[in-house]
């Protein structure tokens, strides 16, 4: 995966570049908005990480320009500004996801990988399958090994999101944002309890657990434990 980091703080950009490389991706850096825009136009990137406040050209302006030109590369906005109103502005400008500084690298990586996957049109897939677990998006039925599983509506949406990102780590905040549409940080382990209930339904009576906890990061649903 090729990532372009448009960030004026050299240390932060360098940290991201090294970390992304360690995670097996390639990353390039641009120190200001104009350079970032030029590089985004030329290079064929899978994801752009754009800082909100940049010299020469504001981050939102970079995104808006790219979108106006028809560029649909997924964009993750990094912002040191407040969460409440700034997120809306960022997403309105054409950003796909939004992360406030300071952030945990695992959180950023999970989001970047999820964004890169988004270009695959899995939105239109009617069946999500992980091993013998099947989620039918038309009939809203879930079954494993041919056995039907009854889920609450929220459990269904949780599983749907996890399966859409099968093989990828999704963090607790990503789940809260995408399944519940809340952007705050839950103080206790609310998400963990929901996941463990879901796990009880889809994994409990089966030999191979599919829904796994990734320590310090989040959850992943996949066929084989690595």
């Amino acid at each position: 995966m090729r990532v372009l980091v448009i960030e004026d703080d050299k240390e932060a950009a360098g940290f991201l570049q090294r970390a992304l490389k360690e995670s097996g991706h390639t990353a390039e850096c641009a120190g200001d908005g104009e350079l970032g825009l030029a590089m985004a136009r030329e290079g064929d990137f899978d994801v752009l990480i754009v800082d909100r406040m940049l010299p020469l050209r504001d981050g939102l302006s970079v995104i808006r320009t790219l979108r106006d030109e028809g560029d649909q590369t997924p964009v993750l906005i990094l912002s040191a500004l407040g969460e409440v109103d700034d997120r809306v502005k960022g997403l309105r400008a054409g950003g796909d996801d939004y992360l406030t500084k300071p952030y945990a690298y695992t959180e950023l990586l999970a989001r970047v990988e999820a964004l890169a996957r988004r270009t695959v049109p899995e939105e239109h897939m009617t069946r999500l399958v992980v091993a013998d677990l099947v989620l039918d998006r038309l009939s809203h039925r879930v079954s494993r090994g041919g056995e039907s599983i009854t889920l609450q509506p929220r459990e269904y949406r949780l599983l749907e999101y996890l399966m859409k990102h099968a093989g990828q780590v999704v963090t607790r905040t990503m789940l809260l944002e995408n399944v519940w549409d809340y952007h705050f940080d839950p103080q206790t382990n609310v998400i963990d309890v929901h996941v463990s209930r879901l796990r009880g339904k889809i994994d409990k009576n089966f030999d191979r657990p599919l829904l796994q906890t990734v320590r310090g990061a989040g959850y992943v649903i996949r066929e084989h434990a690595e």
Partner: protein
Amino acid sequence: MNTLNNLWEAALSTTAFRTAAFVVAVFTMVAAAIMWFVSQSTNRVLTQQVLAALSSEVKLLKAEARSSGLKGLRRSVALRSANTRSGLYYLGDNNGRRLAGNLSEIPPDLLGQRSGGVFSYTLSRSNRQSSKDQKRSGEVTSRTAVGILFSYPGVKLVVARDVEDQRILSHRIRLVSLLGFGLLGIGGLVAGLLLSRLALSRVDEITDASRAIMTGDLSQRLPRTGSGDEFDRLAGSLNEMLERIEQLMHGLREVSDNIAHDLKTPLNRLRNRAEEALRDPRGEEAQRQGLERTIEAADDLIKTFNALLLIARLEAGAIDETLEETDLVDIVTDVAELYEPVASDAGFTLRVENAGGGETKVPVNRQLVGQSLANLIDNAIKYTRAGQSQVGMAGETDFIGLDIVVTVLPVVEGVEISVADRGPGISPDDR
């Protein structure tokens, strides 16, 4: 002299004095113009009146001449000349010889004026008795008169009136008015000067006090005389403003103290954990755990910082544009559903009650309402010691000790949401 100069310059720089000077100047000019206009028209009217009187006298004399001839006219003129106080007459033949009257010649000023006019003549001993001063000194002075010259076959007749007394009167009036205006102007300027001194001294007091306040002593106040005049009221409202600023500064100090405390506690914890990990003799694994715990502490710090930032933005009113018409029942249901598993794992029953059943749609920021609800429910779960709870009543809602009840209640001003538990509650000091 120097002090006087300074005083003058100081006065000139004040608005009060400049206003006074301007008003005095305008008033004097307008009054002088009116005075000039009045005296001019009075003179004109008086002259017209005299000329009208003279015309009727001329008519009488003409009639006299017609009935009694030149001799009768001569007699009549002589008689009138002898028995008059201000009348002036001249009757002469066409060769310039005087036949009767108290004027020695036809006044040259009158020669061109057909309907009569103003002229000056010289008073001689022979024709006037009134000016005693002139008689005494023997001086010959020019006097002003109004007269008509007309011709009668063979003779020329001048009938005139002496108006010197009127002229002197109007001259005096002009002089006195001029003097009056001068005095008025000087008086106005002096009053302006005094006013400006008064204003300056009050403004100086306020300026001195505000300088002292600017240097940092916010507890100082501007002096008040208690007279209730505009300066006093100004000082009063400035003092109120200072009071408010002092309160705000105090509040700011308190807030920064709180922020310092809120941030220092997790920072200290973070430092302790890092130090502990470094000292741990168990080596790499222990240090790794230490680092993880350090990151946890950093996350706590970030949470606190975000919360402080959020409060600042809320207080600055930055979220107004993010408000959207939302049904609060939906938010409450969502958040309750989010927390239900945690609550039931901890032994609680989380219930939502929609009381009243009125309008529950209001413009809110869904994220913020959701977050505050989440915090309240979170606290209810964390701080209600399940085992020690009692069965009891809270308001109209029956609930047993392990219930957490979220109630949505439409009220007049909007919608009220309450999160009720049977925990120890918040001590009155912290509310």
